[in-house]
């Protein structure tokens, strides 16, 4: 898979548009998923996804090592999402009601739970996490999402965020501490 991606990236760098389309198909779900976790609504996640691929198209010449394409994609998506969060800060965004969204356009917890009580608990926990995460500064929030939700290694997060690994560790520690404090009653159970 990685070799295939590296080959597609090289072809794309030589001007092959079909290779670019293939790369969009491979990464579209990952980019949308990451974007949604940062911006928390479909409209902005869609904007981040589109703009990420347009920017990749424009800047592919800057990528010296095709094997780092995934980090390159994540970096562009994360930076754009952070910029969007900063733009939206202080501005009231009219969030559509859950019932108005196509399907279930919201974050979920992956565990398949049938017990209604547990389902409600999960929903409340998720809402509390989202609320607490929204109060984090954008870079701390992005670090937390990339490492703790997306499961990327600190080294890769550092590459994506363009900062030293020590900064990743520090941001992660601060973000987790803030969340632990705000989610105290849920986490103690």
């Amino acid at each position, binding site marked *: 898979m990685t070799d295939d991606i590296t080959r597609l990236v090289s072809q794309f760098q030589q001007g092959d548009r079909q290779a670019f389309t293939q790369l969009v198909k491979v990464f579209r779900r990952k980019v949308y998923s990451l974007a949604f976790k940062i911006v928390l609504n479909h409209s902005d*996640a869609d904007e981040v996804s*589109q703009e990420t*691929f347009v920017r990749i198209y*424009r800047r592919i010449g800057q990528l010296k090592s095709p094997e780092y394409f995934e980090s390159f994609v994540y970096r562009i998506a994360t930076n754009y999402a952070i910029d969007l969060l900063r733009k939206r800060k202080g501005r009231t965004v009219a969030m559509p009601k859950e019932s108005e969204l196509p399907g279930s356009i*919201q*974050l979920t*917890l992956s565990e398949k739970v049938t017990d209604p009580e547990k389902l409600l608990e999960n929903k409340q926990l998720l809402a509390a996490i989202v609320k607490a995460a929204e109060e984090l500064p954008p870079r701390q929030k992005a670090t937390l999402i990339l490492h703790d939700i997306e499961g990327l290694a600190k080294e890769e997060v550092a590459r994506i965020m363009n900062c030293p690994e020590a900064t990743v560790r520090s941001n992660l520690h601060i973000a*987790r501490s803030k969340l*632990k404090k705000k989610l105290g009653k849920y986490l*103690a159970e």
Partner: protein
Amino acid sequence: MTYRHTTYLHGDYLDGVLNPDEMAQIDRHLKACEKCREDFERLRTLTATLRRIESPDPGDAYFDNLVDTISLRTEGIEDEQTAEQSLAFRPATARRTLKVLIKLAAVITLLFMAFYISDFNRKQQSPHWSENISGSGYAGTAIEPADYLPAGLNQAGSQISPDSNQNEIDNSTDIGQ
């Protein structure tokens, strides 16, 4: 090891990125300190919950449409980039152009100087030049008509007697008198 110190390392302990000595130290501390143990458990629950968070799936139709939209948006980009490159100010090109202009200016200056010097020399050898500079009180060596007129003729074309001084001009024969 202080309480604060172990708290800071809980994340790395959980991620398994500490060296074996540090791992063993944290292990020992967690067994002994209830406060740290509670903190570590909260962290473990938090990270486990975060790992379970999933984004929504807007559906295949959305993702197919996304590919089409991106394809449309990237269609004219190569042409735009080529146009931008051709219009862009490039310092290297500007430096090269400046060097060529300086060389050109130097060549023109040299040509002009060469022309001026040769013109000066030519004028120095002409009669009018001699008269003009004589009239203006120029103190240099004047070229006299005898130097350039054929032997036996004065400036007005009159014959000069062999006895007369060659340098003496016969004014009576001058045109216009």
